[in-house]
């Protein structure tokens, strides 16, 4: 029986449902000290003095350190890392855990206290007196581009880099010169706060005499963190253990190397005492990194029938105050997708990265790809309007390979798409959403002059996941590879342990990986234990982000299982006195072809491999194999999303009344989990379209760093969704799988804004900036009516 492809309840759930799951803040160590952070209230200021005396004298306070104190202690040997210097001349001002001279964003750490209680650390931090000399702040991306003020006093520009991807400039110019239609979209990707429900936390537990240290961190990337802690602190890598216990969501916000992680490790090591910290929600908002922050310009050149001739894109991207782990690379992750699912003969992309005195940006669900999808899918609607055809028709006219199935097709951005079959996917979504009836209802409401107008928005996205072929990453100047490691081990009693380098934080890997193993080895999924997220147990890995875990890590497990079966086959052949080629393996049992009674179950072979009493000559005992999979290509999932909104013309309020998504992530391992990923992803994209934005004032203060005013949607704001799928296997891995963790977010923001613009089209409205608040929409309507209101 095949287990992959059938819905299966999660192994992870009973612990999480009962409070047994342990998050970092749930774990304690005897004698632990609590860190408290003193943070800059200015976006840009010289630090004149830091007076720690009163705080240090406070009851229960163990120590207080200014940045200079820590510098003198020599706790680190390098600044916090950026592993993606996208160009050789990229500017990268050093970012140390605690600033010494100049604070460059509100929330940057200026001093650290250590106290003996959670509350005591907060009390003591408030008693540290810091004197600042305020400097002009670059409080927006626009201000950074203008360059009237400098984000870093010791740099003579705010521009950090210029990155071009223009494969054929002459062809691109010719495309625009010969165009019958051109459209230009200018879009703002507002800053977003990732807002995983679990705030980040750390607990560093030293071993003063043994010399090793364990860091518990709510991290998506414990393996990368281990390497970077070593590189940053000089602590030998072999003495560092990182544990990411239960992690309460990530969405990119836990994909970084953070000041608190380095502080906890180095202070714990120096003092010989455990050191812990958990961020407040506001600290999460303005000191952990944010996402997006781009100004986009996209131009499409097309012939008279709307067939695309060329696409030209320019981005200005807000790095924030510093380059964090992959800050400069985020726009590049999207660069290759601005041609979408379309046959684009000529393409050009340029990006300028700028420093501001705002919270650094970095990965947030989709990282570059939702931005790309938004731009091309919004621009396609502009083109549809320009040409005078429907949004479905303009897409059909431009699909790669005419919407028919293809494999390994090179596109204008120089990538080779593994597989696609876009036409039927669109058909299915239109049918499932009852698109024709929606259009009829829209027409009815328009003719009746109803105050609540209907808008229908399409998005037919493609994304790039399965990060990544290591050589492709080398070509982008990324500082690491993109492989993933797996080890599959039979225990003597026939149970199976799987060690994976993927590091789940809600994705259900324990369940999905055990399903893969169960199918491959013919054992029950409940006999499979998946071990992960602790570098002492899983020493090799490149972690979970970028929808890579199944198509790299899951595939590595599958391939390791193949090796296990091949070794078991040799043992079975030896003991059955048969030729290995004469054995067939199914349902967990080896049988000699044509001799049904001659059989050996693989779980029994595991015991034979353990005792090693009767193995082929020269064979190593035990039945375990490992695999490091480095995929030959990325994977390119795609799908069609249909958003239906009601726009109240009297108030400007938008209600999302329906949402249909037909995604194609190739063969699904666990459809239950796939649907859950899509649901959550959709709502995060909808939230960008309609509600969420990190708002900064002119002084660089984040005005909405709490859930009171940063509008993470509740159950009231979103409807139930209608999902379905098509299945086009990838050519990039033997399972044909693609990835789905970010698909929802990549498809939904464009679908929703296309729907809002569609509702407002009778007013001549062709664009609205995200988030599409009632105020913005009402203003558009009033402007169209002649501004009489």
């Amino acid at each position, binding site marked *: 029986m095949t287990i992959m492809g059938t819905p299966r*309840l*999660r192994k*992870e*759930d*009973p*612990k*999480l*449902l*009962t*409070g*047994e*799951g*342990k*998050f970092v*803040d*749930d774990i304690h160590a005897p004698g632990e000290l609590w860190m408290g952070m003193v943070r800059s209230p200015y976006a840009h200021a010289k630090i004149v003095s830091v007076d720690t005396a009163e705080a240090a004298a406070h009851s229960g306070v163990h120590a207080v350190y200014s940045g200079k104190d820590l510098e003198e202690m020599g706790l680190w040997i390098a600044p916090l890392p950026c592993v993606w210097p996208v160009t050789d001349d990229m500017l990268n001002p050093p970012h140390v855990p605690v600033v010494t001279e100049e604070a460059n964003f509100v929330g940057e750490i200026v001093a650290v206290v250590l106290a003996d209680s*959670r*509350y005591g650390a907060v009390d003591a931090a408030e008693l540290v007196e810091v004197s600042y000399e305020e400097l002009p702040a670059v409080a927006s991306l626009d201000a950074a581009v203008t360059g009237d003020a400098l984000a870093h006093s010791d740099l003579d520009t705010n521009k950090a880099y210029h990155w071009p991807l223009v494969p054929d400039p002459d062809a691109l110019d010719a495309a625009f010169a010969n165009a019958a239609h051109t459209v230009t979209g200018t879009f703002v990707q507002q800053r977003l706060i990732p*807002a*995983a*429900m*679990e*705030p980040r936390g750390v607990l560093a537990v030293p071993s003063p005499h043994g010399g090793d240290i364990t860091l518990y961190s709510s991290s998506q990337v414990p393996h990368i963190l281990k390497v970077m802690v070593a590189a940053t602190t000089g602590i030998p890598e072999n003495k560092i253990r990182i544990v990411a216990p*239960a*992690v*309460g*969501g990530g*969405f990119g916000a836990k994909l970084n190397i953070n000041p608190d992680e380095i502080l906890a490790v180095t202070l714990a090591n120096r003092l010989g005492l455990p050191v812990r910290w*958990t961020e*407040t*929600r*506001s600290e999460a908002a303005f000191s952990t990194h944010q996402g997006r922050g781009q100004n986009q310009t996209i131009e499409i050149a097309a012939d008279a029938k709307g067939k695309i001739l060329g696409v030209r894109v320019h981005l200005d991207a807000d790095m924030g105050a510093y380059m964090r782990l992959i800050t400069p690379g985020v726009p590049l992750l999207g660069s290759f997708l601005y041609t979408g699912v379309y046959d684009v003969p000529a393409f050009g992309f340029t990006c300028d990265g700028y420093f501001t005195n705002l919270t650094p940006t970095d990965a947030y669900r989709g990282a570059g790809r939702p931005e790309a999808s938004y731009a091309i899918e919004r621009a396609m609607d502009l083109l549809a309007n320009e040409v005078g055809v429907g949004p479905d028709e303009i897409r059909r006219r431009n699909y790669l390979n005419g919407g028919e199935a293809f494999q390994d097709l090179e596109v204008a951005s120089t990538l080779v798409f593994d597989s696609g079959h876009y036409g039927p996917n669109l058909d299915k979504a239109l049918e499932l959403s009852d698109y024709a009836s929606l259009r009829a209802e829209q027409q009815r409401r328009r003719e009746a002059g109803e105050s609540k107008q209907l808008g229908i928005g399409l998005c037919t996205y493609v994304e790039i996941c399965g990060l990544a072929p290591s050589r492709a990453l080398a070509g982008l100047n990324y500082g690491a590879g993109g492989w993933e490691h797996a080890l599959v081990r039979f225990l003597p009693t026939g149970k199976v342990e799987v060690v994976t380098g993927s590091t789940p*934080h*809600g*994705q*259900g890997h324990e369940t999905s990986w055990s399903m893969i193993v169960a199918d491959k080895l013919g054992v029950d999924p409940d006999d499979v234990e998946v071990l992960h997220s602790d570098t002492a147990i899983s020493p090799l890995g490149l972690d979970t982000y970028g929808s890579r875990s199944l198509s790299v890590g899951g595939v590595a497990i599958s391939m390791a299982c193949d090796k296990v079966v091949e070794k078991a086959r040799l043992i079975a052949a030896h003991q059955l006195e048969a030729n290995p080629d004469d054995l067939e393996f199914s349902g967990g049992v080896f049988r000699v072809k044509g001799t049904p009674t001659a059989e050996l179950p693989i779980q029994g072979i595991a015991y034979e491999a353990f005792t090693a009493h009767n193995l082929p000559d020269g064979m190593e005992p035990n039945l375990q194999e490992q695999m490091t999979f480095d995929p030959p290509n990325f994977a390119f999932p795609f799908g069609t999303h249909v958003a239906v909104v009601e726009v109240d013309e009297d108030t400007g309020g938008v209600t999302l009344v329906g949402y249909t998504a037909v995604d194609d992530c190739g063969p699904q391992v666990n459809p*239950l*989990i796939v*649907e*859950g*990923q899509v*649901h*959550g*992803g*959709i*709502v*995060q994209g909808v939230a960008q379209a309609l509600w969420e934005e990190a708002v900064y004032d002119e002084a660089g203060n984040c005005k909405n760093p*709490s*859930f*009171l005013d940063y509008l*993470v949607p*509740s*159950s*009231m704001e*979103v409807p*139930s*969704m209608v999902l379905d799928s098509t299945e086009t296997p990838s050519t990039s891995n033997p399972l044909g799988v693609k990835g789905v963790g970010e698909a*929802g977010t990549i498809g939904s923001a464009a679908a929703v804004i296309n729907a809002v613009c569609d509702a407002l089209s009778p007013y001549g409205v062709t664009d609205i900036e995200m988030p599409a608040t009632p105020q913005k929409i009402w203003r558009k309507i009033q402007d169209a009516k002649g501004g009489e209101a």
Partner: protein
Amino acid sequence: MQIDMTVNGRAYSADVEDRTLLVHYLRDHLGLTGTNVGCDTSSCGACTVHIDGQSVKSCTVLAAQVRGADITTIEGMANDEELHPMQEAFRQCHGLQCGYCTPGMVMAATSLLSENPDPSEQEVREGLEGNLCRCTGYHNIVKSVLSVAGGQS
């Protein structure tokens, strides 16, 4: 300050700082870490517990305010043998992913059904408005709660 209360059927007595929040008393003093803290503003509901049968956000209640009260946390919902029907429904309907909001969500949902045993989808959505989830898009959470409601009716 001396406080006494019953938590999950067991009597506790302790001397705590006046300002101790109920959630920190439960987590840091009693070791009942199933109740999570997701914000500082009683916006997210991750810390929801039952106080004398009513769902309350324990991050905005002082431990001293509930002296003598009967508290139930997520650890008190399942018995030794099986999950509480609401916990089981969340499992069956894939109503959780990372699991951080889940204890609060389960506590809020059981309280909702004790007040309204047969809610409509809209009433479930309204009833859970004070509990934020970043993973599920609420689709399967709502489905979970409705499945219990349907089972009860």
